[in-house]
Structures are given as structure tokens and as C-alpha cells.
């Protein structure tokens, strides 16, 4: 238990050894303490994010149990290729982001900028594919509340000729799509925020920041980005995969 407190003490010594870097804020004793604090804060924020998406995942599980056939059939209407492509894009972007953090840690400005740009492009790519999918669902009348119609689930499809639901169950696909749009929408919102933040960080990095030991903003943004990736890692199987063969 004492160890926590002594951390501050040691940072005290650090404070004496080093001169103040410009980014050290007044109420911290050392860069070390500041960075640790920022990271911990970020983790706590991600904790709230877990619970934020948690509510949605919880609803998803309940309704999947409840309206199993509707969830299966509705899931068939999503494009597997789009989901797979998006998963790939996001995983690569996570990798590029991890490399960006590495570049910042090793203080290589060019690499930092390069990896950040790659991440932004991949993120935008993800959003484009998502937008395409949403558009498709709009055209198919799958958007609950706005233009939903269960007609498409009554007679089977080309790929899944057995997907014939009775009308009452076909109506329940609306619950699936409600959750689908809520979940992917919230996720996309997080992506948009992420891309915006990253663009801002890129702008600053371009001006020469984050390669002087001030890693925390890049590192914490990286945590955020990876978290958004993890959410997708779960959305992908839940929405696209697990019902392929039912």
C-alpha cells in the first residue's frame, strides 16, 4: 500500500534531477507522475465506455435469446464481406496506431506522422464501408422506425432460401435492427470522434509536438482507438457471424 504514496516521493527526486519540460503541469511533481496519471485517467474513462456499450450488449443478449429465429434471419441480411473487410481495416488501423505510439516513444517525427495518417485513412475506410452498409439497409427497408418493413424476411432469400419467417417473428427483426443500428451507430460515433481527435493530434504532431518525450496524448489516444477496435471485435461475431449457420 505504501508504494503508491512513495511514488510521489520518488517523483519528487525526479523533479529535482530534471529541469521542467514545458508540458509538465504545475500540480505534478514530475513527467513520470503526470504520464502515469493521464494513463490511469484514460483507463478509467475506458471503464465507463465498457459500461456504456455494456448496456447495449446486455440488451442484445436478452433479445437474441428471446427472438432467436428473427435474429438469425436478420443477421443473414448483413454482408459478410463488408463485416470482414471492416474488421480487417480496424485491426490494421490498431496496428498502425500502436506503431504511431511507438514512433512517438522513440521520437521519430516522420514515422509518427506517417502512422497517424495511415490510421486516419483506415478509420475513414471503415466509416465508408459502414456507410455503404447502412445505405444498403435503408434501401432494403431495414431501418427501424424510419422505413422498416418485415416483408423481406417472409419468403427466404437467394442465399438463404429457408429464411421464411412467419409475420409475427419477421416483425421482431425490427428489434435486431434497432440494436444493430444503436450498436454500430454508437461505435461509428466513437470512430468519428476518434478520427477527429487523431486529425487534431496529427496537426499538432506536424507542428513538432509529441516527439520530445511528451507521449501521453498519443498513448492515451491509442488506448481509446484500441478500445473502439475491441468493441468492433465483439460486434462483428455477434452481428454478422454467429448466426450464419442456424
Amino acid at each position: 500500500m505504501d508504494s503508491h504514496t512513495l511514488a510521489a516521493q520518488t517523483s519528487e527526486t525526479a523533479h529535482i534531477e530534471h529541469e521542467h519540460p514545458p508540458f509538465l503541469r504545475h500540480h505534478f511533481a514530475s513527467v513520470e507522475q503526470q504520464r502515469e496519471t493521464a494513463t490511469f485517467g484514460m483507463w478509467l474513462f475506458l471503464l465507463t465506455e465498457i459500461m456504456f456499450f455494456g448496456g447495449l450488449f446486455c440488451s442484445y443478449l436478452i433479445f437474441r435469446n428471446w427472438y432467436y429465429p428473427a435474429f438469425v434471419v436478420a443477421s443473414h441480411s448483413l454482408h459478410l464481406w463488408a463485416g470482414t473487410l471492416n474488421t480487417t481495416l480496424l485491426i490494421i488501423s490498431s496496428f498502425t496506431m500502436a506503431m504511431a505510439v511507438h514512433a512517438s516513444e522513440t521520437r521519430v517525427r516522420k514515422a509518427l506522422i506517417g502512422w497517424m495518417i495511415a490510421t486516419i485513412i483506415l478509420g475513414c475506410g471503415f466509416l465508408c464501408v459502414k456507410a455503404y452498409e447502412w445505405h444498403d439497409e435503408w434501401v432494403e427497408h431495414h431501418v427501424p422506425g424510419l422505413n422498416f418493413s418485415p416483408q423481406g424476411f417472409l419468403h427466404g432469400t437467394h442465399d438463404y432460401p429457408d429464411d421464411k419467417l412467419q409475420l409475427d417473428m419477421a416483425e421482431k427483426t425490427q428489434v435486431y435492427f434497432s440494436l444493430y443500428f444503436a450498436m454500430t451507430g454508437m461505435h461509428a460515433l466513437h470512430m468519428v470522434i476518434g478520427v477527429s481527435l487523431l486529425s487534431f493530434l496529427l496537426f499538432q504532431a506536424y507542428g513538432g509536438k509529441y516527439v520530445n518525450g511528451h507521449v501521453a496524448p498519443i498513448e492515451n489516444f491509442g488506448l481509446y482507438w484500441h478500445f473502439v477496435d475491441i468493441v468492433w471485435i465483439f460486434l462483428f461475431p455477434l452481428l454478422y457471424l454467429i448466426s450464419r449457420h442456424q
Partner: protein
Amino acid sequence: MSTIVTLPDQRTATLPKVSYLNKEYGLKSWLLTGDHKRIAVLYLISITFFFFIGGAMAGLIRLELLTPPSDLLAADTYNKVFTAHGIIMVFLFLVPSVPATIGNFVIPIMVGAKDLAFPKINLLSWYLYVAAGCMLLWALVSGGVDTGWTFTTPLSTHYLNTHVVTAGLAVFVAGFSSIFTGLNFIVTIHRMRAPGMTWFRLPLFVWSHYAASILMVLGTPVLAITLTLVVLERTIGIGVFDPTKGGDPLLFQHLFWFYSHPAVYIMILPGMGVISEVMSTFSRKRVFGYTAVAFSSVAIAVFGFFVWAHHMFVMGISSYSALVFSLLTMLVAVPSAIKIFNWSATLYKGSITFETPMLYAFGFIGLFTIGGLTGVFLGSMGMDIHLTETYFIVAHFHFVMVGGMLMAYLSGVHFWWPKITGRMYPEGVSKLAAVITFVGFVLTFFPQFILGYLGMPRRYAAYPAEFQVLNVFSSAGASVLGVGYLLPLLYLTWSLKYGKIAGSNPWQATGLEWQIQSPPLTENFVETPIVTHEAYDYEWLESKKENEVPTVG
């Protein structure tokens, strides 16, 4: 093992030349400040504002309920009034009350830090609070909301044409304000403690805020997503809670109470922290069973997450899960009992004086015990069937929230007022206010227990004539209570200019915040303190005085 404490002579005390209040001048210096103390003051002002708006709504409720028919207010106006009362009091007053004002002010000092870990986020949290407040006021001014503070679906999503979306978003924003406060506290308590300030040297105030912050960080996001879904359901028409589309309105109840039950502990735990400080200070004694009190805070926070469905016993949840939730409700009541008894035992062999904060703290102990024990009534499933949604519940939660937390809040405000402003308030009238509040409170809310058992439903604009007598008592009590709350507003404001100078440690308390000047410097400490003593170490305080050791800058 004994302590004599003589209070310092306040006639010789002087106001320090430089303090956080006069370091910088001008509106801008306040609105852009990163100083946790200034943000605390900003919060203090804004929550007082909202408290009185909420109080005015309570006044309207009680006036309407003076007579059986809905004559003063039409039914829909009444509904808007109690909704506004509930939302304002819970989200804009009670949740931020102690943490965002007193907690913000003293926690960094108590742990020996110069500021909270994230000053900008702290300021952002205040702005979010203000934004939420404005949105809610806007919703009220432009026609009101009548969902009740619980936003019950499908009523809120499909059957009302009031400003539900605005109000929902306001609560959403207020939620993020509270998330950021909690996040800041946790990080500060973990990472910013002064050398030597171990976990078990922390004042219990810090422990209880730590526990409450865990609840804020983990619970509030669920409320956020729930309200998002409600808003989406209202605007776009998605179907997660809507039974006509296949959704389940009970799922809303699950998600809402998953936050809102822990939220009641967000509301009480910081108050419990205040009581620990006050009881200890005015009996000049270490809090009895420090570790038990500290761990019971954490236990309340942890178990608080397991009991939410006790709000749904009659709603058609499965009887088996009702059993589980009822059992866990009983378990979560135990740590509160532990605390109450420890505070009582703190008095044993103390050297007790009865300053205003202590009077409020006594009020807390009595009223919270009643409120908590009636919570046990509600937790026993069979009893809850008769009591739920009646005035018994209204009485229960006002006893814990007003009799408990509001008393604790006022106790804390009076206790730390000299530190915040550097001045004392008039002792006589403040004691009078404490007594008036207590009497008014009991008169207002005790009859409601009886009303509730008689069966009077809550949220009723009109009620059968046989309930009138008790309602008249209650309304009479509310006016006494109103006076009790207006008095502090008046004399505390008065004391800003005319109050006696307090000096750095008017109560001879042991917390680090009392070892620095009042009002404190912007940086709190001249040099980082090194802590070598336990919390509530009155011998250390004495020796410090004798030897004039300048341990703390």
C-alpha cells in the same frame, strides 16, 4: 492516550493577504480557472441555485396537496412540477452536492496535492453541469416534462408530448459531469497523495468519496446509454423498449435502476464522509473502528451494484430473481448499520461540543437511521407489495436523501465554511436553523409514512379526503423546512462580509486542510507536506501546537 484541545483564540486571527480568492480578479479568472477550490465555489453557487428551484417546486407540491382535489395546479401541471422537482433535486443537486463542492474543495488538500489530477476536466465537468442545468431549465420554461424522474417507458417514449428529449439529454450531460468528477477523484486519490499519505492514513471523507466515485464511473454510463435509447426511441422510433415492436419495457427498468440504485449510494456515501469528519472533530476523538468504516464504504459501493431490481418487485420480474435481489438488499443494509454504530461509538469517552455541524450530524444519524430502516421494509418483498409506489416510499427516500444527505451536506458546508471563506457564520442563528430544519423535516415527512401505509399513492395530484389531515401536517412542516433552508442562505451570505475571521483551524481538526491558512493559497501548500501521522491523530495536533512544528506549509 488523551487529548485536551483548546480552541484557538479567534480574536487574534487575521485573513491572509493572498489566497485563492484574491489571487486573480475578474469574471474571466473564475470562468477559466483550473483551481479545484474555485471550481468548488462555482459548483456551490450553481447547486444552491438549483436547490432553491427544486425547493420552490417542492413548495408547489406541498401547496397543491394541502387540499384533496387538484385545485391549485391542474393534474398535468402537478406532474410537471414533481418531475422537475425530482430531476433537479437528484441530478442537479444531490448527486453533485457534497462531492462537487466540498469534495472538490478539500479532497486534493486532504491527500496533500496541489490540485486534482485533471483540472481542465474538472472545469469541463462544471460546464457540463451548467449546460445540463440550462437544458433542463429550457425544458421547464418551454413547457415542462412530466415523465417523473424515472423516465418510465413506454410512457416517456410514446405517450407524452412534452420535452422528454431535452430533459433526457440534460440528464445525459449531467451524467457525464458526474462521471468526470468521479474519474478525477479516483485518479487523484490513487496518484496524487503526498509522501507518507498511505491509504490507511486517509481521512474517511476521502474513502467514502473513493467509493462513491467508483459508483459514478461504473454506473452512470449505463444511465447514459439507457437515456440514449429512450431518446432514439422517441425521435426515430427504434424498438428496444417498445412492446408493440417486440421490445421489453422491463429492460428499461433493469438498465435504469442498474444506475439509479447505485446512484442512491452516490448520493449518500459522500455525506457519510462528512459525518465521519464532523463526529471525530467535535468529540476530539479518532473515529471508532476506522478500518471498519472505511471498508464499509467500499462494501456499500460493491454490493450497491447487486440490488437494483428491488425497485421492480411488483413489476413482473421473476419471483426467483426477486428473491435474490431481496437477499442482497438486506446484505447491503449491513455496512450502513456498521457505520451508524461506529459513529455513535466515536462519542464514547470523547470530549463533545455541539457546534452547528455537529447538530446537523446528529440530525443525520437519527433521520438516516429511520430512512435506512424503512428501506429494509421496502427490501422485504412481501411488505414492498403494499408499500411500493405509495407515500411510504416518498417518506423513505426523503428521510435518506433530505434527512440524510442534505443534513450531511449542510453539516459539511458549515464545517468547511471557515476554510472556504476564511470567515465564521453567526453561531446562534445557525444552531437555530439546524433545529428548525430538524423539526420541520420530521413534521413534513413522518406523516408520509403513515399516509403510505394507509395506501396513499405517490404522484397523485388529487387524493381521497381521508388523507387530508396528514397532508396538512406535511405541508405545514414543509413551510417550516423552507425557513430552515432559507436561513443558512441568508446568514452564510451575510458572513461573507461581516463574519468573524476564522483563522486556519477554528475547530482544532486534524485534517491537512486545517493545517493551512484559510482561505488557502491557490497552490494549497507552500511545500509538499510529508505525512507521518494517522488520520484523526489529536495527539499529533497537540504536539504540533506545542512545538510549533511547521510540518505543513
